[in-house]
Every structure is written in structure tokens, then in C-alpha cells.
């Protein structure tokens, strides 16, 4: 079947209060499509953490969400500083977020672990000085 739906979002880092709007839109669209609530929640949380990361670390970026009959893929791309040590970044509690981010409720070092927890497959490609691409899949 070729009936794929592609949703594209530009994530801006100018206004922290708006972070999460893309994930929120995906969540309500999936709900309307009749996707099971547990699946919708997994996608929403994984994408929201990714979106927040883009805003905090990478000055924004773009997200493509591809909905197929068997899976939902989220591709998050940014032109940020890149992740120096992916293995370290995957450890719960490890954070490189600046202190002011913690007063906004983030930077606990749980972003990437949560993204892994809620997605069925996750792949990170990152190059220092060039950017990061995170691909997450949730199977239907």
C-alpha cells in the first residue's frame, strides 16, 4: 500500500512557550485518525522530547512524521552543534543543557532515554558542527 501520510513541521527556537506545538498537532491528528490511545501517547511523548531537545540544543530544526499502515516514523533533523558522545547522552540523568533550562522544567537528562523508551526503534546520526538526525519508529 502506498497510502502514506507525511506531515512536516518547522520547529523554531525563538519562543520556548511554543515548543511542543508540532507534537501536539501530531497527537490530535493521530487521535482523529483513530490510532489506539497507547500508540498516540508513545508517539506524542517521544516526539515532544525530541522537539524540546531541538529547541534547547539546536536552535530549532525540522520534523517529518510519516504515517503508514504499519508504523509511524518521526524524523527530526537539526543543524545544531551535534552530540559529542551519544552513548553518554543516552544515559539517564546525563545532561548538557544550560542551567536556565532547568528552571523551565527540562535538562534532567531524561530526554533521549525517554525517546528510546517510547519508540520501538531509534537511530541517531550526529556530526559535530553539522547537526543531528534522529529517526524514531513506533509500530502500529
Amino acid at each position, binding site marked *: 500500500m502506498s497510502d502514506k501520510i507525511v506531515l512536516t513541521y518547522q520547529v523554531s527556537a525563538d519562543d520556548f512557550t511554543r515548543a511542543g506545538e508540532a*507534537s*501536539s498537532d501530531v497527537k490530535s491528528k493521530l487521535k482523529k485518525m483513530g490510532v489506539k490511545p497507547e500508540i498516540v501517547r508513545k508517539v506524542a*511523548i517521544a516526539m515532544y522530547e525530541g522537539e*524540546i531537545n531541538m529547541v534547547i540544543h539546536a536552535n530549532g530544526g525540522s520534523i517529518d512524521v510519516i504515517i503508514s499502515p504499519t508504523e509511524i516514523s518521526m524524523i527530526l533533523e537539526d543543524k545544531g552543534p551535534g552530540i559529542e558522545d551519544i552513548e553518554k547522552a543516552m544515559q539517564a540523568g546525563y545532561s548538557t543543557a544550560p542551567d536556565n533550562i532547568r528552571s523551565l*522544567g527540562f535538562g534532567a537528562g*531524561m530526554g533521549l532515554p*525517554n525517546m528510546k*523508551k517510547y519508540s520501538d526503534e531509534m537511530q541517531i546520526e550526529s556530526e559535530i558542527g553539522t547537526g543531528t538526525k534522529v529517526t524514531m519508529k513506533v509500530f502500529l
Partner: protein
Amino acid sequence: MKIKNSNVILILNRKDIKFVTIVYKEETYSMTVNDIKSILEARLISGEEHLEKEVHTACGSDMMSDVLAFNKDQSVLLTGLCNMQAIRTAEMMDIVCIVFVRGKMPDEGMIALARERGIVLLSTGHRMFSACGLLYEKGLRGGATYR
């Protein structure tokens, strides 16, 4: 406040014993948003139409990723974080109600988003520790230990 009994039935199939049925009884507590409001002497900010919704578990944190690591149905979030991301986090997790501790009050943008998403907003004068303790004392729990 209600006490619910949920039964888990385990059937073993062995040669010598045809069926053994073990009934495991687990008590789960639930309360309504309105119960939480009275226990915490909280002020209702928005969502009056959802006061009868049931709450089964609670989570208390100012760090949103800690909240996002907690995946439970029908839960209440107690937080000292009073910004848009508290509402967004609750939205992603289908959280029924947010209680702002230490008397914090959300702004209009937060209230509007919470209304749109059907999330009740409460504000209590109690501090985080006391607010969590008061609900715990009445039987509300935080779910399983983090692995």
C-alpha cells in the same frame, strides 16, 4: 473515594494438575478530581466540567522529563513548574489534572490550552511534599517503582 478490586487469574496447565486457578487480589484506590481539590484545599482554576473524572495515580515533579518517564492512565500531576510546558507535558501524557503547589497560578495562555485539552487546573497553598503526602495518606499511589 473508592477501593477497587482487580483480579488476576493465573491458569497453570500441567499433566498432573489440569487447572490451578490462583486469584490474586490487588486493591487499587481511586479518587475524583473533586476529592483531590478538597484534600488539598485547592482552588479550581479551570475545568469545572471535569471534576468528577477519576484519578488512579499521581506524579509529583518540577522536571518535565521525569514526568514524561512516568506512563500511567488517569493520573494527576503535582508540580511547582508554572509554565506552558507543564500543560504540554500533561497533554502528551493524557493527564487528567494538574495541581500547582505553593499557590502558583497559571497565566491566561496556560489556562486556555488546558481548557482546550480538557485538563483540570488546581492551585494549592501546600508545598510539594505536603501536597503529595496528603494524597498518599488518602490512598493515592505513584505506580510501580522505576526500573
